[in-house]
């Protein structure tokens, strides 16, 4: 199983949208995909999925992930906690959850897509350490100057932890001024050469507010599994 970390330098960039649509795109190609919601403070990935809220079960000291479709399985805290309850977990408890979700779930996918918490907070570092040297990454950003700075920090950390960045998603690129988007794109392209990743543009479109649109993520899917 190859872990694919979907991360970003700041919050609200669309990591969950990218994670779910990427997972569905791969599953529609007949690839077995596991999807993990590791954003414990805002565990919302399940909201995009038709998850059967059955009781959690275990087998041989491993939790059984929830089936979402023929080729897709899912696990995340959001399914098992009451709606609207705030999460006041300290670092130890959060890191403990990460360990459970990464190592004590009977994942069966060829790829494990991980919807990561935003920014370079300590829980991300826990994830990076767990995935050191064996994961691929997708960095999600918007064409905004602040996003460049934040994403450069994340790219640096991913390099430090020997996680191979396959793609940088320029999300909702059509919502920004054309000139600004071009400038940001040019800067990312320069970093893409240095890090060896592909810059993938994903447009904002109304359908993505209410449903998954996996076909918009073909180029990204090819970048991460190719």
């Amino acid at each position, binding site marked *: 199983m190859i872990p694919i970390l979907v991360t970003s330098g700041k919050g609200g960039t669309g990591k969950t949208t990218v994670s779910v649509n990427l997972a569905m795109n791969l599953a529609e190609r007949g690839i077995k995909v596991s999807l993990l919601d590791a954003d414990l403070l805002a565990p919302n990935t399940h909201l995009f999925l038709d998850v059967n809220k059955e009781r959690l079960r275990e087998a041989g000291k491993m939790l059984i992930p929830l089936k979402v479709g023929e080729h897709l399985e899912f696990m995340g805290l959001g399914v098992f906690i009451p709606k609207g309850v705030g999460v006041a977990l300290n670092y130890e408890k959060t890191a403990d*959850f990460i360990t459970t979700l990464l190592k004590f779930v009977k994942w069966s996918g060829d790829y494990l897509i991980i919807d990561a918490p935003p920014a370079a907070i300590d829980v991300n570092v826990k994830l990076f350490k767990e995935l050191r040297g064996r994961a691929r990454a997708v960095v999600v950003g918007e064409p905004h100057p602040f996003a460049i700075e934040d994403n450069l920090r994340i790219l640096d950390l991913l390099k430090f932890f020997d996680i191979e960045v396959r793609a940088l998603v320029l999300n909702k690129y059509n919502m920004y001024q054309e000139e600004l988007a071009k400038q940001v794109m040019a800067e990312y392209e320069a970093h893409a050469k240095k890090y060896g990743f592909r810059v993938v543009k994903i447009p904002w479109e109304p359908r993505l507010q209410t449903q998954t649109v996996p076909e918009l993520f073909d180029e990204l899917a090819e970048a991460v599994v190719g």
Partner: protein
Amino acid sequence: MSIRLRLLSILPKLMGLGLRRFNDLLREFPEAKTRSAVLKLYDNAGNQVAFWLGFEGDKPVVREVDPRNPPYATTEITMLIDVFIKILKGKLDFRAAYLYDLIDIKSNDGLPSSYHFLLWSAFFDRLIEMLK
């Protein structure tokens, strides 16, 4: 009010459950046979009571134990008696209480505490449902 008197306030509910279907509840969770718990309850004065929950052979068992020297269990669940009473009365969700950091779960079998939390949550859900 002492912790025992506080416990007495929920005794009718617990007895009702015991008389009704506690064995059924434990049997409904077959994986519980490989897990056990020490439930430790304390009050603000520092008094404690503890119960051991689990299986002995095929028989589900709940018994009071010494909180300072409890027998081995795969999990230790510790909370304020008031929190436990609120959970049993359905006024506080077990999961929410854990996420608010009102419950401490310690693992004794090498599995992460959150692993046990997720599984015990399902057990408590069913317990509360039966108490209603």
